[in-house]
Structure formats: C-alpha cells, structure tokens
C-alpha cells in the first residue's frame, strides 16, 4: 500500500484551487454589491432626502449625466472599499478581515442604510396622517362602510351568475394548468436535471422563463389577453392559466426537490434508467403534495379571478368595476359581501380537502 507521492499531493491541490476560485468569485460579487450600496446611498440621500425632504422641491431635476457621474463615483468608492476587505459586502460574503473597522462599518453603515430607506419610503409614499383623519376622509369612509351594511338586493341574481362565472374561470384555469405544469415541473427540478450539462441548460433556461412569467401578475396578463382575445371571461381564464402554470410548475418542482433521496439512490443502484427512477422513486412521493398544491391553487385562483375581473377578465370583478364607476355604493356593498362569503367558503373547503388527503 505504498501510494504514489504525486497522487498523494493531488487532492490537496484540488481543494486549494477550488477555494481560490471560490474566493475570487466572492470578491467580484462583493465589489458589485458594494458599488450598489454606495450608489443607492448617494441617490437616496440626494434625491429623496435632500431635494424632497429638505428643499421640498416639487419637480426634482433629473439628468442621465448626473446619474452617470454618481455611478462613476460609486464604482470608484465601492471598488476601493471592497479591496480594503472591511466593507459590508465582504462581511456578507464571508471574505472580510476580522477586525474592529469591519465591525464599525457593519454597524454604522447598516444602520445608515436602514434609516435612509425608511425615510425615503416615508417621502415617496407621501405618508400623511392628516389625510387619514380629515373630516372629508371620514365622511367617505362612512359612505363605503354604510353601503356594506345596506347592500342593494335588486342585483342579487345578476351577482350570483357573475360569481358562478368567476368560480368556473378559476376552476378551468386550474384544471387545464395541471398537465403542462406537471411536464414542466420535472424538467425544472434541480435534483433531476443537474447530472448532465445538457439537461442543466434546459433546467436553467426554463427556470428563467418561469420566473419571468410568474413575476408578471395575473392582473397584467389579463390586460394583455383582454387586448388579444377581447374583454371577457376567456381573457381572464387565459391570464389565470398562464400564471397558474408558471406558479404551480415552480411549487411542483420544489416538491420534487424536497423528496427523500434514499429511494432515488436505491432505485438508481439497481441499474434502472432515468425514467424508471422518476416513476418508481420520485412519483409516489409527490402525488399528495401535487394534489394539495392544485386544490390550494384553485382556492387562490377564485380570489385572483375576482381581481382580474376589474381589468376586463369577466365575472364578478367586472361587475364590481361597473358599479364602482357609477358610484353606486349599495350595489358595490352587495358584491363585496358576496365575494367575501365565497372566498371564505372556498378557503374552508380547500383546507378541509387538503387535510383529508394527507
């Protein structure tokens, strides 16, 4: 058992090389993050705090040249700061020097960032207690809440039909979403796709596409499709469908990523191929989570369907929008009560079903 000295050395070298590579990547990330922090601080302090809060300007001067200059300054400061290894990002990525300067930077700059963010938020949202409690405001609130307690029952039948439309929009969107979401979820599960470069590229691209689709709210999809296929329940259904596929594929694939790895290992060890491993070791573990997610998604979709009705997706939301536009608050009151009731019932039913299948 006399080992070749060259082979003996090799493993340690590999470990060192890996570490060096990792530290380089971390440093680049830290530089970028530090530049962002500095840029953010300067922009926020200059625009939100100096111009708006202190000078109380109505129209804030803006030019790309100015932003460019600030960016240049931040790049210089950020890069310099990171290279001292005492910056906030160095600490975050774990490559900082462990001394007092780092500690102070962390405390002072962290606190500074938090505060300017809070002040900027205050300025931008025009937070105003005066508006909230003015006599005019209180009157408006009385009008709305009063209507809720005296709903107009004359439109009850129409509202029920619209509600049924909404529930079916949600149901159909959920049902149609199942097959495509299933298919996509298997190719966006990291543990199934990481083995070869080719599949990993597919995984990566699909993940990006899914994240993009999901980051566009159903409300916006509804606007897009109401132009595409015309205002009405079909536009609403398609909008929900698109978002549901993206959302559920993500949830399903996470369920696949969270399975017990033991059975997968055992079936792989028998010499089974990829498809067999998935069918025997993965699928039995994910059937229940999939069912549960799908039912929950239907429940969410009923709520979403009322909202996308507001932009022309059909159903009860569209009806609500019409009466709100006419300022007929008692009709609005009835619709709001009905939505609340149906959402509550759906929530209850879906929770019960999910309890029962587990």
């Amino acid at each position, binding site marked *: 058992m006399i080992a070749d000295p060259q*082979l003996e050395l090799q493993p340690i070298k*590999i470990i060192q090389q890996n570490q060096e590579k990792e530290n380089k990547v971390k440093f680049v990330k830290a530089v970028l993050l530090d530049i962002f922090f500095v840029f953010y601080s300067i922009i926020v302090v200059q625009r939100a705090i100096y111009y708006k809060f202190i000078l109380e300007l109505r129209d804030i001067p803006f030019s790309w040249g100015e932003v460019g200059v600030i960016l240049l300054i931040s790049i210089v400061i950020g890069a310099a700061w990171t290279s001292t290894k005492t910056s906030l990002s160095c600490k975050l990525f774990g490559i900082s020097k462990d001394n007092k300067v780092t500690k102070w930077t962390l405390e002072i700059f962290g606190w500074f960032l938090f505060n300017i963010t809070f002040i900027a938020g205050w300025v931008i949202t025009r937070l105003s207690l005066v508006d909230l409690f003015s006599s005019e405001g209180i009157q408006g609130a009385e009008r709305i809440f009063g209507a809720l307690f005296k709903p107009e029952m004359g439109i009850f039948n129409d509202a029920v039909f619209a509600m049924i439309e909404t529930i079916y929009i949600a149901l159909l969107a959920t049902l149609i979403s199942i097959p495509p979401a299933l298919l996509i979820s298997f190719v966006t599960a990291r543990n199934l796709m990481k083995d070869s470069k080719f599949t990993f590229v597919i995984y990566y691209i699909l993940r990006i596409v899914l994240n993009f689709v999901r980051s566009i709210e159903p409300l916006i999809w509804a606007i897009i499709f109401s132009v595409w296929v015309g205002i009405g329940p079909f536009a609403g259904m398609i909008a929900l469908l698109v978002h549901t596929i993206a959302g559920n594929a993500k949830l399903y694939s996470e369920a696949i990523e969270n399975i017990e790895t033991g059975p997968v290992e055992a079936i792989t060890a028998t010499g089974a*191929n990829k498809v067999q491993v998935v069918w025997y070791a993965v699928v039995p573990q994910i059937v229940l989570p999939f069912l549960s997610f799908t039912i929950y998604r239907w429940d969410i979709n009923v709520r979403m369907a009322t909202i996308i009705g507001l932009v022309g997706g059909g159903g009860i939301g569209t009806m609500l929008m019409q009466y709100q536009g006419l300022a007929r608050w008692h009709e609005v009151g009835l619709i709001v009560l009905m939505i609340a009731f149906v959402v509550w019932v759906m929530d209850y039913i879906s929770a019960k079903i999910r309890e029962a299948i587990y």
Partner: protein
Amino acid sequence: MLLKVENLHKIYKNGTHALKGISFEVEDGEFLVIIGLSGSGKSTLLRCINRLIEPTAGTVHFLGRNITHVKGEELRKVKTQIGMVFQQFNLIKRRSVLTNVISGKLGELGTFSSIFEKFSQSVYDEAYKSLITVGISEKADIRADSLSGGQQQRVAIARSLMQNPKLLLADEPVASLDPATSNSVMQYFEKINKEMGTTVICNLHFLSLVRRYATRVIALKAGEIIYQGHPSEINETWFKTIYGEEAEEVEIR
C-alpha cells in the same frame, strides 16, 4: 478476483476529503465487513464501488474491468450486477411489498412495461422466490411502509436479490434496528453469502456482529485503512485505535 480497489480518493465539492488512498482486494465468496467511526468514509467507499458517486482519483476494478469512470448504459449494466442495501431501507413507501421487490429488476426491464407495471410471469415468480428467501412472502400485497423496520430491511434484501448480484453491498444495514432484529437480518446476509455464494461487503458498527459474521475485516479511520485482517484478531488495543481512547465495547447478542 471479484473486486480490486486501488489508491481510491474521494473529495466532495465542499472540500471534504472522505477517502485518502484506499486499496484492497475482495475474493469471490468473501463476507467482508468494514468498520470505523461515523464519518470515517465507510459509506463513501461503498458508493464509490457501485458508482453511485464518482471517485476523484484511483481505480475500481470489478470482475476484471475498470469501472472507475464508466458512464451511461455501461454504468447501468455495472449497477445491475451489484446489489445494495441501505441503513434507512429506502423502500418506496406507498407501494406494495411486491412492487418494491420487482423494482430491483428494473435494470433489465423495458421502460414502458415498467411504467405500466406489465411484468411477465417469470418476474413475479422470481419476486416471490426472493420474498421466500427472506421469509416474508405472505406480506407481498401490503404497503411497504406498514411493515416493521426488520421486515422492511428484509424486503430491501429481497429487492437486491432480484438483481442476482455478484456483489452485495450493505451500508449499515442494521444500524436502525433493535439488537434481536439486527441479528436475524444479519443471518439473511449470511444465508445469501453461504448458500448463493454472493460476495458481501457490509458496513457495521457492532463488533459482536462483526466477529460472528465476517470472514475478513477492514477498519477505516479518517478515510484511511488502518487495519486489515481476521475479525478474531481485533483485540483491545486495535479497538482503541479504531474507535478512539475513550471507546468501550458494547456487547449485543
């Protein structure tokens, strides 16, 4: 010679150096037991042998063939010849015992027939035969997760028997079982080793079991072999070297 491992190294992505130049040979029909503390590299070694993981350096020869870096279909072929039993049984919980046993045959079955679970009568016969070998053929139709730990491990053994393996690997097969059940499960390994002539490589913790079943012992410490020999030669001094100064032997019967 069945298996020849030479100067095997495994370094995980996180930098852990799990195996540091392991070399040993296994003859046909041996019952080799590997002992050592948790984290000494026992599991990694087994997984390098049946190529669930790929070694960083060194070679593994199985049946005279270098399998250290085989890929794809060839790798599957190699895997079908090596059975494996795990500490956590790793059965498919929601499926029947019979389906679990048949899943050991997947390497030789077509993709479509296995998805639709259309198996030939000979596969069923073989599955029942395996179940009879481990003595639980009467449980064939019940769900795997309703069995006790010892029974689940026997199903796992039956599953590996479906492969007609030349080599059976067992990764701490009795570590989650009580002493009495441990012994009965070990007896099935002995039976397979003696009656079918299958070579067994088994990770174990309890020395009393090692002395009773092993024909040869390898002790690992921090990824290196520190002892090779007959189980009866492990005395107090060796025991302390393998398990550390404070260790004391626990007897189970």
